[in-house]
């Protein structure tokens, strides 16, 4: 006698087939993940906050001071920091609080624009060199080798002598003319490395179109390296400008920069140390913060650093 087996007994009540494959949490995008890792880095976060404050002051500082950076007050020269003049005044009685932030604009612009321009050129150059490889790569890298073997500061000094005019644009040109070489090398190396990865080979084997490979694999991999390189380049440009201005080859009066402020104050540091220390502190602080930020970004953007 056969027992009747009800159909209900055969219903699946256990885990569904695709249950194991289910992603339990919302997908974390690459940038969100990087941001989370970045925020865990306290030093880098602090550097970012300080840079934010500096940027705010550079933009709004001259207005807050209530003085124009060119306004002279000959009755009140070399005054120490006080309630009227927070950072004191210089030898022509100009308010240093206004001048420091005005000078910061020049330093920051040079740092940011210089780093972006040179990395833009470097990316294109390095990208072409790495992507095409072979003979093109050989010739292009020889050129970079020649350019890179001439000391950077010599090139900058020479160009600022030759170009005569010492405006912001000329300074930027002088500093970026060989400044892109470093990034070009980095980008080329990265492109070559990505090109030879197995997942790129796999993508090619699966018939993925070249532009999609570039978009999905090459650019994201190069981008993180470039962002880090830009961050490390910015202090280099700020230093370069300060160095030139310090030697009298940079920004000319009445305009000013942190390097120029430090240079003017340097001759009288024994009597008015605050005139030197404030711009010097700004340069050092900005360079320090960008370097620490770069360290943090490198750790955050590189997925291989993940623990």
């Amino acid at each position, binding site marked *: 006698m056969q027992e009747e087996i009800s159909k209900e007994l055969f219903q699946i009540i256990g885990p569904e087939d695709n249950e194991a494959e289910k992603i339990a949490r919302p997908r974390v995008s690459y940038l969100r993940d990087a941001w989370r890792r970045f925020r865990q880095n306290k030093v880098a976060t602090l550097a970012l906050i300080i840079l934010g404050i500096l940027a705010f002051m550079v933009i709004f500082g001259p207005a807050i001071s209530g003085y124009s950076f060119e306004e002279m007050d000959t009755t009140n020269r070399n005054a120490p920091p006080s309630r009227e003049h927070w950072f004191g005044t210089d030898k022509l009685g100009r308010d240093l609080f206004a001048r420091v932030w005005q000078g910061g604009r020049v330093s920051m612009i040079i740092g940011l624009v210089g780093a972006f321009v040179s990395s833009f050129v470097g990316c294109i150059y390095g990208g072409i060199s790495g992507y095409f490889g072979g003979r093109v790569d050989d010739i292009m890298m020889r050129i970079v080798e*020649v350019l890179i073997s*001439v000391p950077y500061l010599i090139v900058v000094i*020479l160009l600022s002598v030759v170009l005569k005019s010492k405006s912001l644009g000329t300074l930027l040109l002088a500093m970026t003319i060989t400044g892109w070489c470093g990034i070009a090398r980095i980008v080329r190396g990265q492109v070559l490395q990505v090109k030879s990865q197995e997942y790129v080979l796999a993508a090619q084997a699966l018939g993925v179109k070249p532009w999609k490979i570039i978009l999905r694999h090459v650019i994201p991999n190069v981008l993180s390296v470039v962002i880090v390189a830009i961050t490390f380049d910015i202090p280099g440009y700020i230093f370069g400008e*300060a160095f030139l201005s310090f030697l009298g080859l940079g920004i000319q009066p009445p305009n000013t920069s942190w390097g120029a402020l430090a*240079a003017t104050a340097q001759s009288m540091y024994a009597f008015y140390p605050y005139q030197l220390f404030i711009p010097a502190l700004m340069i*050092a602080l900005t360079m320090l913060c960008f370097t620490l930020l770069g360290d943090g970004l490198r750790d955050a953007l590189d997925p291989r650093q993940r623990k």
Partner: protein
Amino acid sequence: MLRYAIKRIGYAVVTLFIVVTVTFFLMRSIPGDPLSHMARALPEQTRANYYAKYGLDKPLFTQYLMYMKNLLRGDLGESVLYPGRSVSETIAKTSPISGLVGGIALAIGFVIGITLGIIAALNKNRWPDYLVMFVAILGTTIPVFVFASLLQYFVSVKLGWLPPSGWGQPRHLVLPIIVLSFGPVASFARYLKSSMLDTLSQDYILTAQAKGLSQRDVILRHALRNSMLPIVTILAGRIVGVFTGAFVVERMFGVPGIGFYYISSINNNDYTMILGTTVFYAALFVIAQLVVDFVYMLVDPRIRIVPESR
């Protein structure tokens, strides 16, 4: 090996040639000629004589050939600003001073930087490591002139221990050397720490320890030697750094070195001097890179083997 050496020397010569050529034409492309600011007040004949003396009456390309011919004989011409002062002689007189200050600074920076790097690597993630890395970051981010001003203010003005500037006595050397060695200390410490950590995780270190060698022997004979290799590659950059840092440092401390004259010739528009000194600097750096490359080849046998096995 030999082929590689010849190739490297060839590149160095080509690089130098390009640098000299570009610098020459750049300097000549400056609006007005090197004598314009002083020749204006001169009578026609005197002016023509001046032009003839510096070869400025000839076509540009002839001037270039002349310059190259003289350069090969080591003659860099005569200062425009101080007639009778030869550029080559000025360089010969001032560069040993810069070399002395820079050399001592580099040597001190090397020793201290390596020591700090070892300390940091052996105390990873403990306070000595953090302290060394803090100093290293300060060393790479504080501009030389800021550090120099701070030292001058506190050591010379406030404490009165050392003269703020001057030349002639050994105590005048102390501050410039400290300032110039700060950068090398920072970069050597940073690089050595990371390469040392790399080396310490290698199997041969484990073997050395398993053999029962003392910790000192393991560190000094096995780990340090192998960790020094990457250091050699940053040496060229550091030599450059010491010399370019000297532009500012020599001026601030009144050291009569070549950087001091370079900057003053730039501020005075002394064209032949600028050109000559730039050529000298370029040659110095290209040769430094070449030497460092060869040293690297000598100390790292792996590099020697690779090209031959191809």
